[in-house]
């Protein structure tokens, strides 16, 4: 995707990731409980942003219904605990269960386009919320708590929630990173650009979309169970709230659609805004909405894209060679796919949609 990131070989990335993860795992030993809680929240935001970015940036899917998997993972975990399973395994199985539901629904949803897909995912999330609220266990609007977690020592519980969010984030990022480098990634980017062109060149549209969709659902479900592990309470209106999708959209738009680390940067921005302006309630959320729209209008490639363009401009003016003309993305990727090229194309991607 970017020449400047070419030193990110599998080995260096793995080493850096291992080092960072190692440090982060040990971090709760030195910082206070408040910081651990905040970081858990940040990791959850990062995971959500990365998943939404995967769908929108890689496959051109704008979903307003990712809260379905966020909430469903938590609900399934509650159900499993109620039927006797230990809480932490139940959280993981719940997330996988939510991804399985996403897998089952994907052949239907993924045949919809653009706005229809956006609203149909939202309606599906609403249907799942209504059905979950019919379950007496959830007690309708009142919601419920994962009481089994109260039996765990609070310090250990805090640490486990932290570890769950960090672990989910790292694993999902590695999977996404691997996926983007694989033929599936090249294919899905081709879809994001122009699915008919991609299909005519032999990209298997549906399996690729499906892989991306189910993976993103799994990531959101993991974020949901990590949230449940930290918050213990399950409130259907909150856990299935459409605000999760709005926040995901914000993070991805601000950070940048077309790179893996853009959404993470967007999550940092949202986290900083939450910490500094969150007390202003609705006004802060209005700002989130306005900033999303402003970024979509004026800087659709986000901070990551702007930074990348700046580097390209600097690189181009440093060498006397003419700058690479903004390539037509479709032909780039479609030909790369047609040629069976698995690695990332070396030409810089044109980031303007």
């Amino acid at each position: 995707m970017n020449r400047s990131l070419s030193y990110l070989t599998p080995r260096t990335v793995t080493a850096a990731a291992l080092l960072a993860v190692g440090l982060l795992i040990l971090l709760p030993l030195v910082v206070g409980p408040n910081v651990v809680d905040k970081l858990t929240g940040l990791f959850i935001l990062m995971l959500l942003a990365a998943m939404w970015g995967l769908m929108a940036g890689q496959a051109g899917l704008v979903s307003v219904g990712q809260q379905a998997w966020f909430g469903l993972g938590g609900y399934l975990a509650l159900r499993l605990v109620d039927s006797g399973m230990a809480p932490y395994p139940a959280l993981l199985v719940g997330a996988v269960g939510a991804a399985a539901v996403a897998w089952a629904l994907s052949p239907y949803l993924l045949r919809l386009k653009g706005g229809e897909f956006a609203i149909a995912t939202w309606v599906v999330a609403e249907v799942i919320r209504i059905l979950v609220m019919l379950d007496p266990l959830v007690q309708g609007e009142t919601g419920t708590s994962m009481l089994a977690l109260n039996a765990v020592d609070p310090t250990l519980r805090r640490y486990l929630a932290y570890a769950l969010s960090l672990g989910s984030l790292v694993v999902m990022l590695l999977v996404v990173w691997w996926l983007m480098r694989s033929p599936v990634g090249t294919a899905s980017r081709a879809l994001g650009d122009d699915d008919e062109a991609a299909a005519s060149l032999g990209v298997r549209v549906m399996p690729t979309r499906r892989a991306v969709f189910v993976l993103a659902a799994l990531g959101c479900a993991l974020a949901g169970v990590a949230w449940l592990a930290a918050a213990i309470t399950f409130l259907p209106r909150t856990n299935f709230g459409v605000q999760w999708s709005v926040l995901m959209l914000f993070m991805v738009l601000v950070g940048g659609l077309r790179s893996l680390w853009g959404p993470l940067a967007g999550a940092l921005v949202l986290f900083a805004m939450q910490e500094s302006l969150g007390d202003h309630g609705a006004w802060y959320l209005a700002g989130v909405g306005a900033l999303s729209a402003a970024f979509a209008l004026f800087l659709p490639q986000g901070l990551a894209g702007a930074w990348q363009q700046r580097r390209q401009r600097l690189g181009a003016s440093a060498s006397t060679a003419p700058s690479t003309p903004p390539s037509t993305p479709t032909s780039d990727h479609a030909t790369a796919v047609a040629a069976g090229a698995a690695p990332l194309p070396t030409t810089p991607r044109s980031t303007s949609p």
Partner: protein
Amino acid sequence: MIDALLQGLLLGGYYAMLAAGLSLMFGVLRIINLAHGDLAILGAFLVLALTAAGLPWWAAALLSLPAMAMVGALLQRWVLARTLQSGPLLPLLVTIGLGALLQNLLYGVFGSEARSLADALGPLSWASWTLPGGIVVGQLPVYTLVLAVVVLATLQQVLRRTRLGRAIRAAASDPEAAALNGVDAARVHRAAAGIATALAALAGTLLALRATVEPYAGPMLLIFAFEAVVIGGIGSLWGTLWGGVLLGLAQSLGALVSPAGFQLAGHLLFLVILGVRLWCQHRAAHGRPAWPWPAGLVHLSRLTRGTREAAR
């Protein structure tokens, strides 16, 4: 049962009003305005504010229409027009952001309290007719349905007969040919966005008359509007009325089963219709008739053909 059917039918008029603007916007601009419900709520709050300032409710409602049409036209000019050339994703993203902005601005200004125009409306808000058989029908819902039919018929005539209407239809069906014939696309788009927003505001006002509105109600209105559009078939105004009525019927029949059934039944009808349309498209793409059995249900394929052409 008959009561529920009647209530559903009357509810349909309101949904048709809500959906008409969304459908027009999609037909002309090819964008799904995800802030449509929030614009409806904004219109309702404008009427509420004008009423609180001392205007009679009907004057406030009449005054809000041109004001909201202006809002829509400006929105098109400054925001949506910028997104039109950059693919289908960007308008979705921008309008989601706009919706969040509107909701939270309204919340910031007016607070979370649910408000209603029923007090300003006086006796009409509870007046009803009793039909033979003891069925009680609220007058307001009946007037809403009548108003919806009148507004849709007027809009249809405007689109069919006036210069502006012809320009709108031309720009919707073939933008390039329309431009060659001297249709100013930007102006047509502004007009369509203005009409669509005024329709949304009218629907929001009707909601405030019959029930309550609150700042975060917009997303649900958007879902209902979109469901009505899809159920009725995209791109046709009378289809919107049918879609609204079918949605209203599904909801009020669902509510007979359980309180949660109200929304659930509407959602499920929407998902089923969308699925049937996909199925027909899939069959058509393989050159097969939409339905495996030749007789009987053939009309279903005829029903969906219109939407297929509109979607193209």
